[in-house]
C-alpha cells in the first residue's frame, strides 16, 4: 500500500468542528490482546474473581487501552500517527467489560483550540461508556502544515 494520506488543512479548521467520531466494541478478547501487547497483566483486567475481591463492579478495560484507542480516530483524520505530538488524559471512570456483551465506547473528536503560529490543532476527545464520560481533559495536539 502506498496511499499518500490527505492531510487536513489547518486553515480550514474552526474551533468546535467535529473531525472524527467512532464507536469501539470491546470484548474480553480485546483486554487479553491488550494485556499481551502492552505487558500489563494486572488480573483485574481478565479475572472476574480478582476484580470482585478488590470491590470492582466487574472486569475493567485497562485505562491505557481506552487512552490508546480513543486517539485512533484522530490519527486517521490526521493521516499520520507521527503528527500527534502531545496526548493527555485523566482517567475518571472505569469501563466495565461484560463477559458476554462486552462494552461499547464512543469517541467524538472536536477542535478545541487552534494555534495558528505553531500550526497545531488541539483536538478534544469526548469518550463515553454507558452514557457517562470515562476520560477527562482528553486532549491531543496535532501538528499540521
Amino acid at each position, binding site marked *: *500500500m502506498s496511499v499518500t*494520506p490527505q492531510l487536513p488543512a489547518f486553515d480550514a479548521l474552526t474551533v468546535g468542528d467535529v473531525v472524527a467520531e467512532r464507536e469501539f466494541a470491546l470484548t474480553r478478547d480485546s483486554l487479553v490482546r491488550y494485556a499481551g501487547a502492552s505487558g500489563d497483566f494486572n488480573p483485574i483486567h481478565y479475572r472476574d474473581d480478582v476484580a470482585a475481591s478488590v470491590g470492582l463492579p466487574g472486569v475493567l478495560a485497562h485505562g491505557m487501552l481506552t487512552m*490508546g484507542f480513543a486517539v485512533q480516530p484522530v490519527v486517521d483524520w490526521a493521516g499520520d500517527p507521527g503528527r500527534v505530538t502531545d496526548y*493527555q488524559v485523566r*482517567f475518571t471512570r472505569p469501563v466495565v467489560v461484560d463477559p458476554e456483551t462486552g462494552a461499547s465506547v464512543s469517541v467524538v473528536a472536536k477542535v478545541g483550540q487552534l494555534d495558528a503560529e505553531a500550526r497545531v490543532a488541539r483536538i478534544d476527545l469526548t469518550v463515553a461508556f454507558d452514557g457517562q464520560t470515562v476520560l477527562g481533559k482528553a486532549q491531543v495536539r496535532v501538528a499540521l502544515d
Partner: protein
Amino acid sequence: MNPELQGRVFPPTEPYLVGREKVREFARAVFATNPINLDPEAAKAAGYDDVVAPPTFAVVVQEHSLAKLLAEPDAGIDFTRVVHGDQRFTSTRPIVAGDLLTATLTVSSVKTLGAHSMVTAESSITDAAGEHVVTAVSTLVVRGDE
C-alpha cells in the same frame, strides 16, 4: 508514601529495542487502522524507516521505569492500592520500529490529599544517540485507608 521521593532520579532502564512485530501487535490491540502503523511500505512512503508506533506505545518502555519506582525499598508504595490518575505523552518525534530506547524516571511531585497520596513520575525516553523521543508522565494515586 515517602515525601522524600520528590526529585529522586532513577537509573536509566535497560535499552529496549522496538520490534516491528511488537509495534504491529500493539497497533492492532489499540484498534489502529492507519497503514503507517502496520505496513512498512506505507511507512516508508510517508518518509519513515519502518512502521510507526501508535501515540501511546511509549507506555511499554515507561513501564520498565515505573517498575523501578514501585520496587524502591523506601518508597512506601503499596502496588495493590495504586490507581492510574492521569497520563501524558509529549513527543519530539514518533517511535519507529528499530529504535533502541532508554527511560529515565524522575519523581516530579509527591502530594498527600487526606488519606490518599499522589505521585507524579516523569519518564524521559531517549534513543541510541541520546536524543529525546518522548516524555511519558503518569500520576498515580495511592489509596489510603478509608
